[in-house]
């Protein structure tokens, strides 16, 4: 892990500067003056909304009440009861949990691709860079481009037709079909994500000492055995980090859904954050209280899944040794 980074972390060890003999009151005042813009902005746009948003979850706010300029009204757990009884929210939450199937697939794929490009063969730098391009692509561009791919007359149907997986007459729009839309949206998430995780895995792979691999080769271990017995165990911290990141990202999927299907068809792609967004901003009955409550539920589920992820990895660690 001691590879050089260009991001300025040249000597983080020489961190704490020696205390200067200057008056510490002056230092304190100066420090807070320099920190003021950041602290004010963080308070106003990060900490306050976190606190106030959580509070709103327990209130009735929005709609007529908001239009009349009335303050939020405390209603306790009422919003959560409404959510528990709202089939749309349950669908949304279910879809968000179902979205998690992307995590193992995405991680396995990006780890495998990282292993493939982590070799000194010509062209590898090119592949790495090209795979990263979807990561730096705007979601709106992805929407434009994938819409054409998924179109009834698009390239996906054409390609599947060319290999006789679908007959010409049975072509359909992948995003308009309630059986496929969910997976089609997920493929776009996958497309935008695998280059990102590949680079993270690449960093982990390059920190594995080459001697270990060489010793295993001398012992006659197959590539597959080397992967499972050397690479995977040593990559555990990276795998944990990546699956944690992608678990949380999968739970928070919103933009893809918004730009590709807007939750449809028949709510098949409606996710939990889509619910939060649309309750607060779509249509005329915007309900900040209910939307905030839904946001809180998502936040708690995200937190629980993070903890579960940690547990899972620690247990499998104990099982192997």
């Amino acid at each position, binding site marked *: 892990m001691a590879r050089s980074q260009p991001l300025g972390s040249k000597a983080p060890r020489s961190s704490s500067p020696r205390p200067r003999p200057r008056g510490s009151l002056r230092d304190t005042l100066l420090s807070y003056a320099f920190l003021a813009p950041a602290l004010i902005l963080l308070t106003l746009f990060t900490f306050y*909304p976190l606190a106030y948003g959580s509070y709103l979850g327990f209130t009735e706010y929005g709609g007529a009440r908001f239009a009349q300029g009335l303050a939020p009204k405390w209603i306790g757990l009422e919003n959560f009861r409404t959510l528990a009884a709202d089939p749309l929210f349950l669908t949304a939450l279910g879809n968000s949990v179902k979205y998690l199937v992307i995590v193992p697939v995405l991680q396995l794929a990006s780890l495998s691709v990282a292993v493939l490009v982590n070799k000194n063969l010509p062209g590898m730098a090119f592949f790495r860079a090209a795979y990263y391009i979807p990561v730096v692509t705007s979601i709106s561009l992805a929407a434009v481009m994938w819409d054409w791919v998924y179109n009834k007359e698009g390239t996906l149907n054409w390609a599947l037709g060319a290999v006789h997986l679908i007959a010409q007459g049975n072509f359909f729009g992948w995003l308009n079909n309630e059986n496929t839309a969910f997976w089609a949206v997920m493929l776009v998430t996958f497309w935008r994500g695998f280059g990102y995780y590949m680079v993270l895995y690449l960093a982990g792979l390059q920190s594995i000492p080459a001697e270990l691999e060489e010793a295993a080769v001398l012992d006659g271990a197959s590539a597959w055995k080397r992967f499972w017995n050397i690479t995977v165990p040593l990559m555990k911290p990276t795998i944990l980090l990546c699956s944690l990141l992608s678990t949380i990202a999968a739970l928070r999927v919103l933009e893809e859904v918004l730009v590709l299907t807007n939750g449809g068809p028949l709510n098949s792609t409606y996710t939990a954050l889509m619910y939060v967004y649309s309750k607060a901003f779509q249509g005329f009955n915007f309900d900040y209280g209910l939307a905030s409550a839904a946001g809180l539920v998502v936040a708690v589920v995200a937190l629980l899944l993070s903890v579960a992820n940690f547990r899972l990895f620690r247990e499998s660690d104990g099982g192997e040794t």
Partner: protein
Amino acid sequence: MSLVVRAPAQTAAPRRRNVKLGRIVLRYAILLSVLVFAIFPFLWTLAIALTDKTAGGSIYNFPASLFPKAITLHNFVDVYRTFSLGKYVWNSISITGMTIIGTLLVSALAAYPLARFRFPGKGLIFAVIIATLVLPGETTFIVNTLTLKKMGLLGTHLGVVLPTVAAAFGIFLMRQAFLSIPQALLEAARLDGAGELTILTRIMLPLSVPSLAALGIFTLVGTWNAYFWPMLALSGAPDAVPLSVAVLKLKGQFNYDPFNIAAGSIIMMLPVLLVFLAAQRLFMRGMEGAVK
């Protein structure tokens, strides 16, 4: 064991070489198919954008539409004029420019005392800033729109920019850069009677140019591509939206002219693609840095 392996080595050597060659071919085959998956949408969009639409033919006429015969730049001119794309390009530049300047300024200012001063509350403030990286912000966008509305900034570029400029990533990055600058340099400047602001602008910032550039480039790509927040904050001001939001509006309104949409998409993608290609290593290393 090793004897058994070594005994047939003479005859097995060429076969093993074949196996090795086969593995390499297989590796490239897999990498190429992943490559098609990764960049096909871009190539097709480029092909559509360059197609001469006056020659007739549909974008869905495969595989002909993937390799346009008559190439033209007319679509770019057309989309620029008919959809007044210049306005949206300018909006993107304005939002991105303000965000970069604001982020660099706020991050550098905040990072300086965190790296170089001792003061009560330092540990707490740093922890609080880092905590924003993991706090679940599922509802922040709701309250932020309400706040901006109260401030009269909803629907303005400043309103889009303000909530995004104070970010833990930038502050952390600049702090690391400042920590690596020798303390002796600062002491010398102080002996010469330089004020802290002078030290920051004359010594710290010039010596941190690589980190500032990295932060600027990351911010540029992130802001230029951002969709959800600008869409929300500017939903009442359709003329103020950046390209990322406008492109989808165009798609909704003018779906019958995919050639222009494709050209608009390419115009939108170009700055980011150029920056990425120029600073590719930086990007990937920056991501790797996140693992540590």
